[in-house]
Each structure stands twice: as C-alpha cells, then as structure tokens.
C-alpha cells in the first residue's frame, strides 16, 4: 500500500483550475467548453488575461454535464442550460447540507 501525501486539489470556490485542466479532467471537448463560454454560463475569473482560470468547483458540475451529454445525447441548445441547472442544484444541495448539520 502506498501513502499519498498532499497532491490533492481542492474543488471549491477558493481554488482555480486552468482551461487546459478543465478540458483534460472533464471529458468535454474544446468545442463543448467554447459553447459554455459563449453562452455565458461558464465564466473565467480573469477574463481580461490571456490564460483563463476558473473556480475549481466548476469541475464537479462539468463532469456531471459530460456524463449527461454522453448518456442522454444532449443537444447543443440543452447543453448550456443543463450546466445552469447543475450549478443551481449544487448550490442548493450545499445549503441543505449546511442546514442539516446545524439541525442535528
């Protein structure tokens, strides 16, 4: 058994991920990500700079989007809208999770 130390990446609102990493890790193509960027549902933190970075939490929703695209053969029009709903669900689930912890 090997022991891995600190090479984990935080997936949250406080850490960033590059566009290349998003492509590599999400399973989506550049074209798919361009579609999301053009639709305004995926927003880089540093739009004015040459190399874009995104909050790493996007990776969670975009991986789900990638699975849904593959398993449901999503059309391009439904694609960006699905990410909006996934992000909204992620945010609501986080709030529910926090409230549940406070209530126990």
């Amino acid at each position, binding site marked *: 058994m090997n022991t891995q130390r600190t090479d984990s990446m935080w997936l949250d609102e406080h850490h960033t991920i590059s566009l290349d990493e998003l492509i590599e890790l999400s399973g989506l193509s550049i074209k798919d990500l361009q579609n999301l960027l053009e639709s305004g549902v995926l927003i880089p933190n540093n739009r004015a700079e040459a190399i874009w970075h995104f909050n790493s939490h996007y990776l969670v929703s975009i991986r789900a989007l990638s699975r849904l695209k593959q398993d449901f053969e999503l059309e391009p029009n439904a694609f960006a809208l699905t990410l909006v709903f996934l992000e909204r669900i992620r945010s609501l689930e986080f709030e529910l999770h926090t409230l549940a*912890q406070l209530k126990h």
Partner: protein
Amino acid sequence: MKYKDYYQALGVKPTATLDEIKKAYRKLAHQYHPDVSKDPKGEEKFKEVAEAYSTLKDPEKRAAYDELGHYPAGQEFRPPPNWGSQSAGQGFAGGNAQGFSFDDIDLSDLFASFSGDQQQAQRTATAGQDYELSTDISLEDAHAGSTVELNFTVQEQGQPGQGQVKRVPHTFKTRIPKGVTNGQKLLLRGKGGKGFNGGRDGNLYLTINFIPHRLFRVKDHDLLIDLPISPWEAALGATIKVPTLTGAVNLKIPASTSSGQKLRIAKRGLPKKNEEFGDLFAITQIVLPPKLSEQEQALLKQLSEISTFDPRPNFE
C-alpha cells in the same frame, strides 16, 4: 460466467428494433441516471441499463450476444465453441473462446474487450477510468488533519493480446488536509483506474463528509454548541467550563443572559486553508431542574412577588 439478460434489463423483446431499444434506454436513463435520480439504488440500476444498451445498440455486439443463447438471468454458462467468430470477424478478444477460462469474467468485461473495440483499443492511448468515493471523518480529524485509507475496485486491462478487463482491488492512504469543510470535494490525480497504451491514469474524486458530533454542529469553519445554563447562572452571570475540540476553556456568562444568545469563543472552530481558524459559538439555553425543591420553590415565589420584570412587553 453469469448470464445477464440485456433485453430484460431494458424491458424489451429480443426482436426489438434499434429504435425501440433507444426509447427504452432513454426512459430508464431518466428514471435511474445517478445525476438525475434520487433513488438510492439508481446508480446500480443505471449501470445495468447502460451495460445492456452499450451492447444492444451496437449491431455486431448484439449479434454476438444473441449467439450466446438465452439462459435465466444469473445462471452460470459458457459461450459456445468459436463464439463470436460468425458475428464479429475476430470476435472474442482472445481470438478463440475455446480453452479459455470464463470463470472469473463478467459478461460486460467480455463485451468491453470485444472485436473492433479491442483492435482499436490496442492502438489507442486510453485514459484510465475516473472514480468517485466519499469518506467520513470526525470533527477531531478535520481539525487536526488526518490520513484515511481508501479501498475500492478498479478496472485494469489484462495482458496484451488477451484483452480481458480485470477488476483489481485498489488500496492506498491519502492525507486529508486541514481546512476541509463538510461536503468538500478533493481531486486526487492519477488515483483512479490505470490508463491503457500510454494513456493517463484516471482520477479519484473524493467527497469528505463529517460524522455528526455529539456536542458540536458545523457551519462552514465555525462550530456551534448548545450551552445549558441554570436560571441563576443566567441571571447573576457565571464562569462556565465549555468543551472545545482542543480542550475545555472557561467562558464568562454575563449577568442577565437570556436563552438563545450566542457567545463567541474566538479561534476555537475548524482550521481554514489560510492558517486561520473559525470560531466556536456557545448558544445559551436556560434549563430548569426537573423538580424544584421546596426551598427553591419558595425562593422563586419570593422573587416573583418582588420583581416587576415583564418578559412580554410586546404582547401589550
């Protein structure tokens, strides 16, 4: 090898057209897809449905599947001699089903390494599979940082030419860094399934869940604790020993404290990522003894007679 009835999994007849198979798959995918369904068994059911669909939507794989014959679901069986050679050219990835042990093989693995897919896979670099796991840790471990052992099964490609996909146990320890919050997701690169033909190894997505604590509740990096106090401690003020994750501290309760007041104990919450700490909030709850003694009752009656305090002025 156990037989799986793919037609039954999709709820279609063996004579179903491709269109009927697609419609059945979509209906079941809406019902059971793990990103859509809240059914706790949804993921398991969707895997069965997706496995059946991936074989039946491909004419070559479907023909090879039909060539296996039909058995009751779950029954042990062996493919017929030279199985696959009629339906899919090279057929079975081993080239010939004869003399091969099928005892430890899953039917899905057989089709994953089948025919054209296999020839293609032998040439193409393929990334290893990603996995998602969750692990539960105590608040004490979240505070101090901890190491957890992860055990799961990954798919690995067999020897070149054999093409069999094996399921192998994958066990390793990983450090949970200080600063995690409840529900935090971490990416462990390269800790998923092995890549094939020079493809990168898959990744592991780990969700950290906090085990509910008997005393503390969590709000981001802050902790909350209910602090029961007696009516006289609330009225007169007191110094009370309050537990924290790093040992008890003395907390001064000011005189005239009401129920539900939050008293902040700075930096006794969970660590943040920037070396700072959240706070601990003690929430006062005035509690009475289950039964008052005669002397207590007499003193309280005396108090009620001399006090002019109105706790409900807003009711007037």
